[in-house]
């Protein structure tokens, strides 16, 4: 995993879910983070799109089941889209 991408996503998750960044791990998910509900999931999607300048499809949004999964998805997308 690219640490820079992971760190940025961790910070976003910290901002959006109201949890200190150091308590967020790759395995953190809607099950472990209380504020990660459907509204905040949409906000996370929008924050990622805005920050990394990409668009996520409904299928990709489905795949974002944890912070780690999300970071992997974003990395893959960043590699495949020339920027």
């Amino acid at each position: 995993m690219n640490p820079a991408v992971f760190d940025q996503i961790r910070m976003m998750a910290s901002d959006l879910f109201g949890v200190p960044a150091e308590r967020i791990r790759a395995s953190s998910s809607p099950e472990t983070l209380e504020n990660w509900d459907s509204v905040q999931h949409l906000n996370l999607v929008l924050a990622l799109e805005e920050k990394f300048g990409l668009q996520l499809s409904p299928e990709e949004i489905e795949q974002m089941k944890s912070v780690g999964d999300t970071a992997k998805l974003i990395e893959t997308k960043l590699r495949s889209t020339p920027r």
Partner: protein
Amino acid sequence: MSADKNASASHSSDLRAAVDRFIADGALDAASRRLSELWRRETGSATASFLVSRVEKIRDQLPLTKCKVAILRSFTVEPIMALLRAEAFTYRIDLEVYVGDFNTYVQDIVDASSSLYRFAPNAVVLAVRTEDVAPELTHRFADFAPEVARHAADRVVNSYVQWVDSFRQYSQAALIVHSLERPSRPSFGVLDSQSDTGQSGLIRHINSELRRVAGIHRGVYMLDYDALVARYGSEHWHDERKWLMARLPISADHLLPMAREWMRFLVPLSGRTAKALVVDLDNTLWGGIIGEDGMTGIKIGPEHPGAAFQSLQRALLDLSRRGILLAICSKNNLDDAMEALDKHPGMLLRSKDFASVRINWGDKSQNIREIAQELNIGTDSLAFLDDNPFEREQVRAALPEVTLIDLPQNPTEYAAIVRDCPVFERLVLSAEDQQRTAMYAGQRQRADAEHTFQSKEDFFRFLEQEAELSPVSDLTLARIAQLTQKTNQFNLTTRRYSEAQIAEMAKQPGWNIFSIRVRDRFGDHGVVGVAIAHDQGEQCEVDTFLLSCRVIGRTVETALLAHIAKSAAERGCKRLVGWFLPTKKNAPARDFYPQHQFELVEQNRDGSLWSFDLTRQEVAFPKWVKLVTLN
């Protein structure tokens, strides 16, 4: 990922930690500055969420202007709310938001007991998509006969008329109505543009009717959503997938522009506008450095690269036509700079367009303080435009209340940045606004004249002042409301009223609202003062008494007081009473009542209450002021 992205990531996590530390230590001013810095560095949804959660903890202890806004909508707006509140915070507005349920805007508006009205908003946004209000004019347009579509357009207009009427019946809040968006791909293709009754034509018709409806009601404004989408490009603005998935029609990148468009209304509605813009010269008003490049070297004119600076000058000229004063603060030799200002053929602005000029090698924040003094306005009513980040930071540190406009590297973007800045928005424009620069030029002559007289009385006589006192009318309503919102210094009670509130007050028995207009040998100052007197049996209470700074100290205030005292006595009142409610700004008005022989009746935490016995005394009308009364 580049190394500097990493550095910025760690910097922003430091900033967050600093914010939390300052909040824990109770250093709220420092916390608030770090929050603003974080927002400038990293404007976006996640940061907004952090910022809002921290502002929530400290907002009651910060000097923020409160504003309650309700968003009535037919689509998802929730992800915009944190962005909106974060933006508002940077303009020192504490925004409380109410979001209506999906498509319940009609019930909310027509039901006097709805949760909308219980929220008691200051402003309401009505954001409805074309397809929700007029399905016949969107996807299925081609299925309908032309007269059906025309009827649908009329029905939409009538609905809006009814909504606006009901709204005004139940609320005096400002109402901001989104115009309807035209389709980017009309059902009939290019044929649609060939008549007035195509999809675009009918929606344009609805929009022009909405504009008319807004125009006949006080405090109802149109937000041209159709033009907003066009500005960013329909293809970019929309996100079809998010619409289908979450009923969010706007793409992630355009949530902030949507929030900022709302701020262009909410900033002036909250009274957070700038009255003057202070500009730098070198590399801001023109390209290059006059002291080094000289008259032939600086870039200013109709061709590239001077054109970008000419566009900025055009934008500044437009602001001055809106009543915003311009001032110069530049580190330069005065003669070099003045030569460029007044002689360079490419300049659109000349020195006469500036109400105050500070060209020297001194500290900019000190110069800006002096400019504020000269113009008689607070530093929090100033905006500052400078290409040099160092100067901006210096001013930001010394005068955090000044609105700083951050300029990018590329001068071709300057004009748009100035035009988009919400502190320059005005929702109404009075004749005074349009003539302000000329009035200040007259003021400079008056100040010169004052120095040559033996006594104040001689000077007052020389001024040949004329005070025109009139009860509130349709012509002065907007100006009266504007003065209550903008006047800080000579204002005894600092009560802010909207146009709608003044109009409502004028209808109530026992309320007397006067304005004063002042002319003198140098020119017309326009309507510069307001007094609101409220009869309560034998006593008349001064609810509001204020005067614009530019006429203070010339006995006009005594003329206005004499007038309300006399008219109260004529209505049979025995006492004239009034509060002085101190604020950070209104020290100039502190001694006003005692100076006019009012007696102190009460003093408490909020202020002092003064009384004047109308049966035994009268306030003398200054003899050098000619009185003109209009009824």
